[in-house]
């Protein structure tokens, strides 16, 4: 592990003094280290390529919104149309443009949160005594009790998730986000997926509630791309055009 950490420090340009040159010398003389070095470089290339691909994708969606929100006559083939048809088309554009303007003016992350938020229903399953008490409080929609029953010392993904949901119900979005992210971090660390899908979805919803569509969108896109995700169908029904529109509006 120590050798790998040194390679990563070298990769990150965080080695001081002669350590960097010595590490490079070490890599050059050891085929196994050369191999490891190539893998690390490839991993960083992959991360940078993914980041750029996602950024280009985001700008592409903005460009599409610009294209659809302002109707522009095609410069290609000019078709001859009758005057009446032109009038009807103009009226439709006016009505469509008005509708688009109204939508643009009224839409926000918060409005999307109101549209897409639904409470989480807890299925009963027996667990530890603390969890049972929390389950009962949750089913009784006693959000304050759910929160008061949460103990950092005895936390599980389930108690974090339910406490996150209780905070979300009480519109304490920062606290909700903290609990959902804790579930995701715990799963990533342990290689598990306990309450993973639920936490991902409600994390995105919490970001929408906080008017942070840029945080919500990558999570929702990931859910939409994963057909096995618990909330895939729900997310697929969302209007990504609306989400992109909010993103564009909030980025201005």
């Amino acid at each position, binding site marked *: 592990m120590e050798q*790998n*950490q040194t390679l*990563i420090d070298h990769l*990150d340009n965080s080695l001081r003094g002669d350590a960097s040159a010595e590490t490079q010398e070490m890599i050059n003389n050891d*085929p196994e280290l*050369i*191999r*490891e070095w*190539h*893998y*690390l470089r*490839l*991993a*960083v*290339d*992959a*991360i*940078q*390529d*993914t*980041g*750029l*691909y996602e*950024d*280009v*994708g*985001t*700008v*592409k969606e*903005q*460009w599409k919104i*610009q*294209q659809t929100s*302002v109707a*522009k006559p095609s410069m290609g083939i000019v078709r001859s149309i009758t005057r009446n048809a032109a009038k009807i088309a103009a009226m439709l554009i006016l009505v469509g443009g008005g509708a688009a303007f109204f939508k643009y003016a009224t839409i926000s992350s918060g409005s999307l949160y109101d549209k897409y938020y639904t409470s989480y229903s807890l299925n009963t399953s027996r667990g530890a005594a603390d969890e049972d008490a929390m389950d009962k409080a949750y089913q009784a929609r006693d959000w304050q009790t759910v929160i008061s029953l949460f103990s950092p010392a005895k936390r599980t993904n389930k108690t974090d998730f339910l406490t996150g949901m209780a905070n979300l119900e009480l519109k304490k979005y920062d606290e909700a986000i*903290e609990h959902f*992210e*804790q579930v*995701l*971090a715990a*799963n*990533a*660390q342990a290689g598990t997926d306990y309450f993973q899908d639920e936490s*991902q979805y409600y994390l995105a919803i919490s970001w929408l509630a906080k008017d942070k569509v840029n945080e919500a969108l*990558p*999570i929702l896109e*990931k859910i939409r*791309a994963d057909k096995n995700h618990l909330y895939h169908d729900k997310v697929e029904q969302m209007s990504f055009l609306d989400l992109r529109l909010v993103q564009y509006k909030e980025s201005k």
Partner: protein
Amino acid sequence: MKVAGKYTDAELLAAIKDERNLNQAILFIYQQYAASTSSFIIHYGGSEQDADDVFQETVVSFIEVVKKGNFRMEASIKTFLVSVAKNIWFNELKKRERSGHREKIFEYGRDQKEQDISHQIGDLEKKRQLRDLVHNLGEPCKKILMLFYYENLSMKELVEHLPYENEQVVRNKKYKCLQALTGFIKSNPAIAQQISEIVKS
């Protein structure tokens, strides 16, 4: 339509290398060149979705070529983008094993310069596989690696963005995430084979 600034070719290249207004530069590329490239793809049998995907890959490849300092001003940016898009679409057609006729038509349109571009933009299929592996890491790992290696945030800044207590915790987490990613890459036989060949040579 809002125009994302106006760039000459030289200004556009400078904006991409500089990275400060990269999104504006990308928007300008879409506004100026997406339509002509897309019509080309559609003309050669692609759908609108194909044209959309190909142009996105084209822009990514172009930016990577520019950032690596491999873009030579031998042709205009427009010519280069069209050549890259042609190349990507040609490879996509080959991959889909469509009719030999269509590929033959396309082959007539290729020249030596485009083959050089193929070398410059690298193996797209491998890039796509690698992107999938990054996504497979899960959101927390992807986020930490993206913020460090793509957004170039420092460890200190990472602590502010992520739900971890201090820099050491973030450092350990980043280490594990990078190891996880290299582990995924190692388990991809085609990529592992390529690395072995590089090491041997």
